[in-house]
């Protein structure tokens, strides 16, 4: 066991998988000589050489398509998007090609590719750099979408993603890169498609993923002092969704709140609520709440930005309403 930051956890996953399988290689903007825009890939060029750690031009559609073709040809690329906001430029390659090829070719070709990078809102980076793409990509059959929170999950899930024979979008968060966690040293995998309980409770269930979990946990502490326990569910994978863990939790608490960094409309919360309404409507004892990014491009001004993103205060307020406190 070692205490390392999220960056190191991701890097160790990449390193371990590249050592294990010679077909795994990394490409993206600034990943090699610059050590990575967020220093995730620091040291990997030195260790593996420029055949396996490749700097690309600013050409998302081109290098995404190239990586998808290489995956079809039998390699296992890990593509870094400097931000998932830039993935929109290669949206056609991801959705029309990566997601469809296994199916369209009747199983003759597979696309074992991972797209990874920071997702959601960085600090004060304004309107075009602050999207959470989880809801968008998890709409399409053929793609898997994962979003870890803990350090161990970053490592274990990335390894699983690289070994997976389907395209996986691996959503990180810039503001979590420095967070330190205890991460096991040995080779371990975290399964795709399974959530986990971070904190147990019996009064209300919060479901969330990635950075907003930080605020959910703070809200848990806040209410614990008042004798109210909030169960915090970390989805870890958005598609395929682990609705089972949500329903199990609702059997105890009967109240649901979903927190996400994406917008409310047609977000991940909407999907969770739809499934709960079908599979577990009799578990609900209160209307379902959502705390998400407000329905506006994210503003630059600090006070506005704070109000638009999920925060501990917004979560506490919403819980108070749902519990009628």
């Amino acid at each position, binding site marked *: 066991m070692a205490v390392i930051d999220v960056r190191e956890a991701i890097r160790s996953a990449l390193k371990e998988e590249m050592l294990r399988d010679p077909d795994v290689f990394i490409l993206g903007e600034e990943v090699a000589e610059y050590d990575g825009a967020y220093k995730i890939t620091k040291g990997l060029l030195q260790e593996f050489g420029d055949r396996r750690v490749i700097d690309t031009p600013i050409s998302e559609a081109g290098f995404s398509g190239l990586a998808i073709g290489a995956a079809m040809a039998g390699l296992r690329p890990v593509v870094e998007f400097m931000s998932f906001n830039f993935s929109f430029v290669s949206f056609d390659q991801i959705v029309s090609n990566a997601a469809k090829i296994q199916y369209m070719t009747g199983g003759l070709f597979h696309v074992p590719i991972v797209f990874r990078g920071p997702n959601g809102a960085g600090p004060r980076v304004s309107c075009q750099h602050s999207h959470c793409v989880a809801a968008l990509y998890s709409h399409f059959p053929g793609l898997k979408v994962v979003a870890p929170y803990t350090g161990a999950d970053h490592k274990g899930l990335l390894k699983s993603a690289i070994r997976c024979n389907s395209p996986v979008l691996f959503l990180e968060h810039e503001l979590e890169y420095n967070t330190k966690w205890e991460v096991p040293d040995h080779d371990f995998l975290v399964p795709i498609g399974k959530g986990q309980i971070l904190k147990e409770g019996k009064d209300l269930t919060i479901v969330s993923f990635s950075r907003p979990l930080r605020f959910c946990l703070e809200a848990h502490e806040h209410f614990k002092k008042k004798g109210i326990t909030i169960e915090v569910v970390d989805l870890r994978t958005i598609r395929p969704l682990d609705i089972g863990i949500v329903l199990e939790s609702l059997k105890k608490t*009967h109240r649901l709140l979903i927190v996400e960094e994406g917008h409310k409309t047609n977000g991940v919360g909407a999907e969770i609520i739809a499934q709960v309404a079908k599979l577990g*409507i*009799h*578990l*609900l*004892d*209160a209307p379902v709440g959502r705390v998400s990014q407000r329905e506006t491009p994210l503003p630059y001004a600090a006070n506005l930005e704070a109000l638009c993103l999920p925060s501990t205060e917004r979560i506490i307020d919403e819980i108070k*309403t749902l519990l*009628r406190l």
Partner: protein
Amino acid sequence: MTEGEIVEWKVNEGQPYKNGDLLFTVQTDKSVVEFNALDDGILRKILKGAHSVCKVGDPIGVVTDEVNEDFSDLLKEWEKLEAPKPQSAPQTTPLQPANAAQTPVATSVGFVEPVFAIASPLETIPTLAGGKEVLATPYAKQLAKEQGRDLKGLPGSGYQGIVTAKDVEKAPSKAYQKLKSKTFPEEKPGSYTLIPMSPMRKAIAKRLQQSKQFIPHFYVTHVVNTLELGKIRQQLKDYGIDCTINDFILRAVALSLRDHPEVNSGFDSKTQSIIRFHTVDVSVAVSIPEGLITPIVRLADFKGIEELSKEVKFLVKKAKEGTLKPEEYQGGSFTLSNLGMFGIDSFMPIINPPQAAILGVGGSIEGQMKLTLAADHRVVDGADAARFLATLKKFLESPTLLLL
């Protein structure tokens, strides 16, 4: 497009054409469309000419690669497809005979039972003035169902006054609600179930229906003083001999019938004549779970009280067990029916055909007992009935005579 009309052939029979040449034009439902040849060939025969309406897939012409290729097989096939189908014989419905008068559906005695329609149950339960749908969370409703609680009128502590799980704990149980409040049941007014009749029920129904319908019943009532009867019975009982009031009545009826053969009679509808029975065989009405049966005490006037009592007990037991043989309940010259044990003061029984009379006995209330004789006026007149009852009264009020 499913169908079109050939407008014009641009190539003649026998004419060769090349890939891309215009062969014909077709009028679809939208416009006139050209069809160009996909390959080289020779048009040998036009099967559907100009102005033919064809369906998609219909053969319209024959083309071959070579000018003298034989295509007679294809033509034969085509002819088969086009041959007019033999008309199947039209189905005619057989004519109803013009004078087929409606023969009434006969019951076994020749009359049509009218149908009395059952009113349909109401669609909804009419609500109390001011009644409202309960707003509760799905979980609260689930709990209420599981615990048998009634949420109506319960104040809710949830969002917008919705009833939540913790409010359900305060809800009264459904059983209490049934008695206390004006809450409506869930059954819609007028709902019903149709219960088919058991064979015994059917038999009783048919028999008594016919009896009431066809026998001209009349009724004569008489009040009898039962003080003496009661005393005698008590004396016997004190001695360990347990006879019922009905046993005495049975003896009295038997002796009276011996003296009044015109009441110990019946009516034969087949021959339209009076049946004068030679023996006094009294049918005793016994209530059983499935309905009603009348075991017969044969030669009742020759049997003393004790013997009658034993026999009746024995027959009742058999009746209740369902082990009576047909000859034990089919027949009889007169029927005795007693509802006195229920506290009834009198009733008008229905005659058990082909018998001509039946006695309905009420309860002994303050030393008085009402007897009602129902009789078939074709056989028994008022005076006969009255005389019979007078004799019966005499016996019952002097019960010592019954002990002889």
